[in-house]
Structure formats: C-alpha cells, structure tokens
C-alpha cells in the first residue's frame, strides 16, 4: 500500500505592491515568500492584533513573523544606524505610537539626531549607564513579582552567571575566589557566584517595600583571563553592589 503523503506546507502568493521599487527599478510579479509574509504582517499588524484578520487564517510563516513582532522584546527593540537598542522601560513604544507620524516606527535613524537618540537611551530610558554583560548582573523587577534581569541596549540579558554557563560550555574554565578566599572551579564556581548574587538580592528584597521596583546591579570589578589556561577568574572580594533605587 502506498505511503500516505503528508500535505506539503504552502506559502501564500504575494504580489509586489503597486509602485514597489528595488534598486530604483519597479518590480512586478511575486515577492519571495519570506519578504511577502513580512510585508503582509507589517501592513496588517493592527488588524491581526484586533482580530479583524483572524490569527488562524495566517500561514505558518506569517504566524511566525507576527509572533516575533508581537513579542514585548521585539516591540521594545529599536534600531539606530547599524545598532539595536532595548528600551527596558517600555515607555518609548507608547510615546511613539501616540504620534501618527512615528506610530509603529522601530528604526529611528532618520527621525532623531544621533546625540538626541543617545541622550534618550542613556539618560532618560536606560536606568543603567555602565552595566556591561561581561562583568555584571542587573536585577530589575518589582518586589512580589518573579525576579527578572535587565536587558542592555542590544537586547541581551545582563546576567553574568547565565553567561558564564554558556562560556563554560564553549570550553573556557571558570574560577571564582569566594569571600572567604576559597577557590572554586567549574560548576561549583558558577554555583558560588549565583549563591553570592542570591544573598545580595535577598538583602535588597528585604529592604524594599511591597511592589517597589528593585534595581540591583552587581559589578565584578576584578575579572582576570589567563589565555594559557583559558581560564577566567572572578573575585567576589572585589565586587560593587549598587542598589540603583537608592542612588540619587
């Protein structure tokens, strides 16, 4: 008996919109499925969100594009020039959407001066100016909510311990010097670091009132990399713990 064939996934056919030009030449015929799905979801995003265009009526590819666009991380990720910036306060989206000319815009390259954009993200939206994914963790959540890490301007989590797990998997050795001088390596080193961060976080949570925003930055000031042994060492005796909510 012939094997039953599973129906093959089919994309929608997307015509180039009227007047669509590429490299100065107008295009006719069909767009590629990836480009078409993106254009379709972008053009109909509001209708899909409202349900005027049912989500179920979308093709798999369109659903995937829509999920990406509807994701809060995506929604709060902006581009300026060739860089991406994340707005942890999520306030910029609402502000831009209140202005018809800026509604839905995520690439702000030609909409703001470089210095104004920098001012906006560094001074007004970004609560941490110096946090760096290679030397710090940054906890940013309300007391009572699930603990969360802050994302830096490129959208990556400021969570050094998780990062170390990845580094370790890539073959690098991890060494941690504990507060009492003991040296830990490998998984134990990472556990020691997480334990240290938990203690610091616990202190901050206890000091905060219910519902209060906790913004705790833990910066490992002494990090050392030995290229011969491919080992990175973090010293817990030289750490700066900043409770940003207490910092004027």
């Amino acid at each position, binding site marked *: 008996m012939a094997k039953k064939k599973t129906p093959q996934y089919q994309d929608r056919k997307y015509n180039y919109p009227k*007047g669509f*030009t590429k490299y*100065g030449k*107008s295009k006719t015929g069909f767009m590629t499925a990836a480009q078409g799905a993106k254009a379709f979801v972008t053009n109909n995003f509001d209708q899909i969100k409202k349900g005027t265009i049912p989500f179920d009526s979308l093709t798999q590819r369109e659903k995937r594009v829509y999920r990406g666009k509807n994701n809060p991380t995506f929604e709060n990720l902006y581009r300026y020039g060739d860089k991406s910036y994340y707005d942890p306060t999520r*306030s*910029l989206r*609402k*502000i*831009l959407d*209140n*202005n018809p*000319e*800026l509604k839905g*815009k995520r690439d702000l390259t*030609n*909409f*703001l*001066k*470089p210095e*104004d954009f920098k001012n*906006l993200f560094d001074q*007004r939206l970004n609560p941490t100016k110096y946090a760096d994914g290679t030397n710090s963790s940054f906890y940013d959540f309300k007391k009572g909510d699930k603990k969360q890490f802050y994302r830096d301007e490129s959208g990556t989590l400021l969570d050094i311990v998780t990062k170390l797990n990845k580094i370790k998997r890539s073959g690098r050795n991890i060494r941690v010097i504990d507060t009492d001088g003991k040296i830990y390596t490998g998984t134990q080193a990472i556990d020691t670091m997480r334990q240290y961060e938990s203690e610091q976080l616990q202190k901050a949570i206890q000091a905060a009132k219910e519902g209060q925003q906790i913004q705790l930055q833990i910066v490992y000031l002494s990090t050392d990399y030995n290229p011969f042994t491919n080992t990175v060492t973090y010293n817990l005796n030289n750490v700066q713990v900043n409770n940003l909510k207490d910092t004027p």
Partner: protein
Amino acid sequence: MRKKTNAATYYKNPSLQESIIRYYKEKQLNFVVKHSNYNTQIIGSEATLKFIQTEHPIRVFVAYNKIVKDLKESPKTVEILQGEWSTDNFDSRNGLKPAFYKKILNLDISSAYPYCLWINKLITQDTFNYLMAMPKTERLPAIGMIAKKSVWITYTAGKADSWELKEGFYANIFFYVIQQITDLMAWAAEIAGDSFLFYWVDGIFLKPSIPKKKLDEITRIFSEQGYYFKYEKVENCNIVRDGDKLLINMIKNGQEKPYQMYDKNLARNFTKVLQQLENA
C-alpha cells in the same frame, strides 16, 4: 534743511569699505554706516559713499513703489501687519531616508509671490501686470524690498556710539506672503503622504510613484487657491543626510541644483518624545 553732500557709488568691496571706515575713525569724524541686504553706505558730512551688491534697473524700484502704494490703500494691509507670520519656507518628510532617485516629480507654483499678493487683494491688477511683465530676477527683489532691513551705526568723533535697526514698514506683508505659500506646500505635502520628499519655497518634490489620485488632488487645490503651476523635469536626485542636515543634489531642467536644509523633523520629534516622557 539737510545739507546736500557729494555721492559716489561703487560695487561692494568689503576691504575698501573697511579702509574708509578705519580712516574716518582715525580722523575722528562724525559719520553713519548703513548696512542692508542691497548695499552699504558710509554717510559723512561731506560725502556719501554707496557700495552696492547688484545694480537693479529703475523698473525694480518703480515696481516696489507701486506695491507700497497699493499696500497703503489695501483694506487687508492693517490686519496682516498686526499678525505674526513665519518665514520658514522649507520642510522635508519626517524620517526622509538618504536615497537616489533616477527621476522625481517637481511641481512649481508659477510666480508664487505676485499671485499671492494679487489673490489676497494686496496689489491692484495694474501692479500685478507690471510685476508679471518683469523678468523673474527683477520681480523677486522688487517684492523682497518690502521686507528691507538695515542697521545704522552712528560714529561720533570716530567712535561708534549708537546703532539702530530699521525695518520696512510693510515687512510683515512679505512674511505673510511667505507663510501663505508655505502653508500651501505643507497642505500638498500632507496629501502626498509617503510620496512626499521635500518642499522648498514654492516647489514641492514628490516620488514619481505618487498615486494619480493624490497628484490630482494637489493640483486641484493649487488651482482652487488661484495659483498656476508647472511640472519641472528633475533627474538624478541624490539625498544625503549629514547629522541634522539634508544635502540634496539634482539635475533640474538640465542644470545641476543643490539644496541644503535642516531636517526640522528631528528636533520636533525629540521635543514630542520629551514632552510625553515628562507627562508620563
């Protein structure tokens, strides 16, 4: 009665002007220096030296006098003089991307300022006809003279001791005309939407892909408002962004034409964001 002095006219020569002023100062003379867009005059007790930038034919001054005469008699003048009018006469699309367009569409209002004066009943048919019979290069200075502005610096015994800014009494009429044309351009830009690129004084530049319906609406509005317009051939339009400046080069009617303008949208957008951030 004012004593008649000797007068001499020269073409603008900043180093000669400076030398004469320095000489008068050293000799501790009493004199007045008048700077305007059109000329610089050094008015001494014995002679008046005039340095002109361009020599306008007598008909330019005749046209200017005709405009002023009409403005004195127009019932709308008083009302316009009391208003506040913007002299911003360019703008670009918010978020205009640097790009190269092989062809773009340029709609120019023909003789925008004389028509504006006439449509608004600020000048008579006779003055309008007189202006329209002049070449463009003379028409513009004749109208621009109503906004003439000059600085008078008085020197006593070789020392500058006072200065005064003198503005044409009808300057606000000229600013009103500018704003009328700019408002019309902004209206057209709004209709064009995504097809709008930028406008400059009395010409709007659009993407060639502008839907015909929108283009018809723009031209209908121009006609309804009483203006004539023409399509200009524009090729190889290159838009470059340098910070908040837009540098635009194009070939218009076979001649290279550069434009440089501030992108006012950048500051506007930032102000809007800041205002809402403060209110949040």
